C-alpha cells in the first residue's frame, strides 16, 4: 500500500496541523489526491476529518503545513501565504445543504456563475444543464424551502459543480437523510461525480458510504491518519485494531505473535479469562515474533459447528442467536469474550448450545493493537 506519488497529486496536503487551543484537531496529516479521483476521509466525530476539509476549503486557517491544489499554493503559513476561500475555485456541499431560502433553485445554482460575471444566457444554459444532470430539471423556479431534503441535496450539488471548479468538497452531505434515501443518493452522487470528473474529497462517518463511493479511503482517528487505501484493502487488510473495528464488524482479541512462519503468516496465541488458543493466521505489517497484537476476524469468517472437527477450535456456548433472514446472528461466549458469528440460516443454532468455532486462517489478521 503506497501513497500516491507526491509530485503527480492534484491536491497535495503536507504536514497539516490545526490547533484549537491546546487540542490538536489535525495532527501532522499528509496525503495527495490524484486528479479526478474520489477520496473519502472516514472516521468518527472529532477525528479531524471535517477540520481537514475546512482547511482545504480555506474556511479554517492552519497552524502548520501546506496545501497545494493544481500546483497553486492555497495555504502555507510558514511562508505567510493564504488564499481567500472565495478565490480557491472549490465547489462545496455542506451537511445542511446550505441552500439559500430566499432564492429559487435556479437562483441558488446560478449564484457562482453570477459572481464570476458570466453572461446571462450562458448562465441560464449552464444552470439548465446542470439541473438536468442532478435530476431537478423541473424544479428550477421553486423556492428552496419547498424542496425535500433529498432535492435540496441535489440542488446543493448542482450549485457546487455548475462553475466547473477544480475541486469538490463534501462535508457529510447525506447524514441528514433517511436510510433509503441515503443509499439511493450515494449512487447518484457517485454517478454525477463520474460524469463531471472533478477531483473530490468526501468526509463521512458512515463506513458503508465510504466503501460504496470512494476510489480511496483515508481512515482517521484523533487527528491522525490510521490507514489509506482502496475499499477492498481497507476492509480486507486493516493495519490495526482501530481500522478493523471501524470498518465493518470485527471480532477483536488481544494476543501475542508466537512466531513468523512465512512472510505475512505466523502463529499467534490468544487468551481470555482461563481460555487460551493457538492457531496460524495472516500477519499485518510490523508484526514480529513476540509482538503484542490484536487478532481481527470478521463474523462471516468464523465457522460454528456442533461437532468438533480437525484443527484448532474454540469451544464455546451460544448465548444469543437472532434469525435475520439471510443468516443467524450468533453471540458465542468463549471465556470472557463474546464472539460475533454469522451462521448459516438453516443451521438452527439456539441459545444454550455448545458449539465449536473455527477461524479461517486466510481471513484472520493479526494487526497492530
Amino acid at each position, binding site marked *: 500500500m503506497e501513497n500516491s506519488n507526491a509530485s503527480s497529486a492534484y491536491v497535495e496536503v503536507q504536514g497539516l496541523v490545526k490547533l484549537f487551543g491546546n487540542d490538536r484537531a489535525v495532527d501532522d496529516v499528509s496525503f495527495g489526491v490524484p486528479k479526478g479521483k474520489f477520496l473519502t476521509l472516514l472516521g468518527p466525530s472529532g477525528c479531524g476529518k471535517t477540520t481537514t476539509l475546512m482547511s482545504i476549503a480555506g474556511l479554517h486557517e492552519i497552524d502548520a503545513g501546506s496545501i497545494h491544489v493544481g500546483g497553486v499554493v492555497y495555504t502555507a503559513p510558514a511562508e505567510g*501565504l493564504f488564499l481567500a476561500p472565495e478565490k480557491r475555485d472549490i465547489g462545496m456541499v455542506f451537511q445542511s445543504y446550505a441552500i439559500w431560502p430566499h432564492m429559487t433553485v435556479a437562483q441558488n445554482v446560478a449564484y457562482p456563475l453570477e459572481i464570476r460575471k458570466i453572461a446571462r444566457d450562458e448562465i441560464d444554459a449552464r444552470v439548465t444543464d446542470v439541473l438536468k444532470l442532478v435530476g431537478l430539471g423541473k424544479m428550477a423556479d421553486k423556492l428552496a424551502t419547498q424542496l425535500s431534503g433529498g432535492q435540496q441535496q441535489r440542488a446543493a450539488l448542482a450549485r457546487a459543480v455548475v462553475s466547473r471548479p477544480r475541486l469538490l468538497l463534501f462535508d457529510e452531505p447525506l447524514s441528514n437523510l433517511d436510510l433509503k434515501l441515503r443509499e439511493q443518493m450515494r449512487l447518484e452522487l457517485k454517478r454525477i461525480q463520474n460524469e463531471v470528473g472533478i477531483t473530490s474529497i468526501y468526509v463521512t462517518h458512515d463506513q458503508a458510504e465510504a466503501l460504496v463511493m470512494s476510489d480511496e479511503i483515508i481512515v482517521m482517528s484523533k487527528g491522525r491518519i490510521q490507514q489509506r487505501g482502496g475499499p477492498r484493502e481497507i476492509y480486507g487488510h486493516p493495519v490495526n485494531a482501530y481500522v478493523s473495528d471501524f470498518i465493518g464488524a470485527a471480532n477483536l482479541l488481544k494476543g501475542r505473535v508466537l512466531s513468523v512462519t512465512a512472510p505475512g503468516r505466523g502463529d499467534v496465541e490468544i487468551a481470555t479469562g482461563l481460555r487460551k488458543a493457538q492457531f496460524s493466521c495472516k500477519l499485518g505489517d510490523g508484526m514480529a515474533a513476540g509482538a503484542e497484537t490484536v487478532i481481527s476476524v470478521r463474523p462471516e469468517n468464523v465457522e460454528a459447528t456442533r461437532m468438533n472437527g480437525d484443527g484448532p477450535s474454540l469451544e464455546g456456548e451460544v448465548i444469543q442467536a437472532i434469525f435475520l433472514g439471510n443468516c443467524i446472528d450468533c453471540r458465542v461466549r468463549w471465556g470472557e469474550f463474546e464472539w460475533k458469528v454469522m451462521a448459516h440460516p438453516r443451521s438452527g443454532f439456539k441459545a444454550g448450545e455448545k458449539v465449536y468455532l473455527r477461524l479461517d486462517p486466510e481471513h484472520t489478521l493479526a494487526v497492530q493493537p
Partner: protein
Amino acid sequence: MSTQTLAGSASAQPATSRWRSLVTQESVATVVVSVIVAAAVILPLLVLVISSFRVLDTGGFDSTWGLDNYRTLYTDRVIPKAFVNTLIVSAGSTVLATFFGVTLAWINARTNCPGRDKLEPYNLIPFFLSPFVGAIAWHNLAGGHTGLLNSWARDFLGFHGNVLNVDNLYGVIWVTGLFFAPLVYLFVVGSLRRMDPSLEDSARTTGAGLWRTAMTVTLPLVAPGILSGAIIVFVTSAGEFGVPFKLSAPYGWQTLTTQIFSKAVGDDANINLGAAMSMALGIITIMLIWIQQRYIAPRSFTTVTGKGFRPNVIDLGRWKWAALAYNIGFILISVVLPILCLLIVSLHPVWQAEIIPADLTLHNYVRVLFWWRPDHIAAATNGIYNSFILAFAGATIAMILSLVVSYMIHRTKGMGARLLDFLCVVPVGFPGIVLAMGVLLTYIRTPIYATLWIILLGYITRFFPYGQRNISSVMLAISEELDQSSRMAGASWFTTLRRITIPLLKPGIFAGWVLLFIIFLRELSISIILYTSGTETLSVGVYYLTNYENETLTSALSMAQTVVLLICIFVFRRVAGREALTA
C-alpha cells in the same frame, strides 16, 4: 462534460498566490466598528468615572481629587434614602410586572382563553408607550384630590376623601410594574411557546395531573425566561426617571435617578456627586444584566427544537371567561383608562378635578401641535419634529451598527468578538440619565454639543444593543454554512453580506428598526440632559409643559405622543407581521 471541465476551469485561476492579508474587507470593517463602539460606549463612562473622583468646592467651579463624593453617598441626608427607595421601587415593580407577565403569558400560550390570539398585540402596548406619560395620566386618575377616579368615587359612590393615591412610591411601583409587564410577558410567552410538548406529555403519561405537571415540569423549564424578564424589569425600573420624577420625588420620595437628575441640573447641581451616584447605580445594574446574559439567557434555549408544533393547551372550562375578563381588564387598566384620562384632562383649559362640559375645548391641542400659530409652544412643536427626525435617523444608524456588531459577535472568533459582546451589555446596564451625563461631559467641547447630533449619539449609544439583540436572535437561527457556501461559491465577504446575510436577516433588521424607532420617539432621560432650545424632543416637551404650564397642556401633548406611538405600533405590525415587535 469531463473534457469541458478541464478547459472550462480557466475562469478561476488565481494569478499568483496571495499574501495572507491582514487588511481584508472583513478585518477593516470589524476594527472600525469596534473602535466606534468602544469610543461611543466606553468614553462617556470613563469620563464619568473620572469625574466621580473629583470633588467640587463650594464655589462650584473648581474640583480636586478625592473620595468625598463616595463618602457623601452614605452620609448625605437624602441619598441613602433615595437608594432604599430605588430598591423598593425596583423590587415592587418586578413583582408586579412578573405577576402580570406570567399570568398573561400563561393564559395566552397555554389555555383555551377565547380570543387570545387577538389579545396578544394589546398586551404588549404598555411597553411601547411612555411610562412618563403613564405617570402623568395616573396622577390625573388617582393622584390624591385631583384624581378623576377619586372624584368619581366621591360624586357617584359617596366616598369621602381620596380612595386612591398614586402620588407616592406605591404609585411609582404601580405605574412602572404595569408598563413593564410586557417585558416579562415576552420572555415567558416565548419560552412557553418554544417548549417541546413531549416534555409535559411524558410527565402526564406517568400519571401527573395538570397542576402537578405545570409545577414540576413547565415551571422549571420556564424559570429561566421568568428570571430573565424579572431581572430586566428590575434593572429598567432602577433606571427609570420619568415616573418617580412625576409621582414620588415632588412629594418627598426621591430615587437614585431623580437625585442624579437633581445633581446634574438641580439647584444643588454637583455633577461630580452625580457621577459618583451613577457609578453606584450603574455597577449594580450592570452586574445584574451580566448575570442575566451570561447565565440565565442561554439556558432558556434548551427547549428549542426548531420544529414547529402546538404546545399543550389546557381547557379551563367555564374559567376561560374569567381569564378573558382578566386579560381584557389588564388592557383596560393599563392602556384604555390612562388614555381616556389624558383625553379628558386635555380638553379642559384648567384642570379642576372634574369634567366641566362647558369648558371643553381643543385649544390645548392647537397650542402644542400647530407650530404656525403665534400662540404655539415652541418646546412642544419642536419636540414632535425633532423626535421624528431623531427616531428615523437614529433607528437607521443604530441598525446598521447592530448589523455589523452582530455579525462580528456571531461570525468571527477571538478577542474582538468577546469584547464586543461585553460592550453591548454595558449600555443596557446604565440608566439613560447616567449615560447622558457622561456624553455631555465628554462632548461638550465638540461641535455636536447643543445640537441634535449629541442627542442622536446618546440615543444610539444607549439603545443599539436592543437592535443588536433582534438581529442576533435571527442570526443564531441562520446556519453559518449559508454564509460559508457563498464564500465557497466565489463571493467576497462584502458580497456575501450584501446578497446572503442581510436579506436573510431582514425580519430581524426590520423588527429591530421598529423597536428602536418607538423607543426613540418616547425617550426622556437622555434628551432631558442634552437638549437646548430648538432641540427639544417629544418627551422633553411634555416635561417642559408639566414644569411650566399646566396639567391640561401637558395632557394634550402626552395624548398626541401616545396617539403617534399607537399608530406606529399598529402600522408596523401590519407591515411586518406577527413576529415584529417581539423584543
